[in-house]
């Protein structure tokens, strides 16, 4: 794993990824702002669009429909120059509790994970916990196999980085 420099913003606000079980993955990060601000950036499409796709990914968001309320649907369409067809990600918000919790399904694959985001505010900072739960271990294994083959070339760079990092 590449080490971040001491004192850099990345070292202070580190994103941690943990494999919780055969079916679960947890991502955590602390933001130096109250929960309502983090929630706003997550739930307003015009703000969400500005951070969801990393610039380095080389992808563009063609459309972004988010009906953020419990039972509402979302649909994100991406394009990558290396692919003719756009990629669509869609699903339903199972729970939307302002400033606290967001739960959505990932329905682009039939064995997609359920993603739960929890915001916990303490002393003006917010701990964001993102939890991905796959329906079965097989579904997660499939996601691993699929991601190794099917994702854009951006990840080839990551793999290089990985290979050189350890």
């Amino acid at each position, binding site marked *: *794993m590449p080490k971040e420099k001491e004192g850099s*913003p990345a070292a202070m606000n580190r994103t941690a*990824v943990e494999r919780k079980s055969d079916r679960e993955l947890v991502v955590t990060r602390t933001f130096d*702002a109250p929960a309502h601000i983090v929630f706003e950036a997550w739930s307003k499409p015009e703000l969400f669009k500005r951070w969801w796709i990393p610039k*380095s990914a080389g992808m563009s968001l063609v459309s972004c429909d988010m009906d953020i309320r419990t039972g509402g649907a979302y649909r994100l369409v991406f394009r990558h120059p290396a692919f003719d067809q756009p990629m669509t990600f869609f699903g339903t918000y199972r729970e939307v509790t302002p400033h606290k919790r967001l739960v959505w399904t990932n329905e682009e694959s039939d064995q997609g994970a359920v993603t739960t985001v929890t915001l916990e505010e303490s002393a003006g900072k917010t701990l964001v916990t993102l939890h991905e739960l796959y329906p079965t271990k097989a579904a997660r294994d499939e996601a691993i196999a699929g991601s190794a083959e099917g994702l854009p070339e951006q990840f080839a760079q990551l793999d290089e980085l990985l290979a050189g990092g350890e």
Partner: protein
Amino acid sequence: MRSWVIGLQITHACFTVNHMVHYQARLDTTFAALSDVTRRGVLEQLGSSDASITDLAQRFHMTLTGMKKHVSVLEQAGLVTTEKVGRVRTCKLGLRRLEEEAAWIERHRQLWSARFDALDKIVEQLKRKEKADAQRKRR
């Protein structure tokens, strides 16, 4: 002979477990699996070609049941994967799966790091805006 295969397995297993919560437990399982001479032999064998449990049992002069046990220990440690086709269970090195899982977790970390770094900037802007608005109201 093919001890580099085992070396590679250990390197990759350590690399993988590095990214995992159950670091210690996983490492214990891996080293326990590698502590047996027959199981190391099986890994060497699978390093040159996939084999069925029957093949392995014959090659190591063991009963089918005995070999099944060894393979299951290696499987639990993620060092070997097996696949049953018809009545034959074929064993192969589990390295690829381990590598894939490690790479997958690392990709998640990279993706979410990039996303959250960008989110951090937006959150910072919103916070500043909120402060400025509050000050304006007070005036």
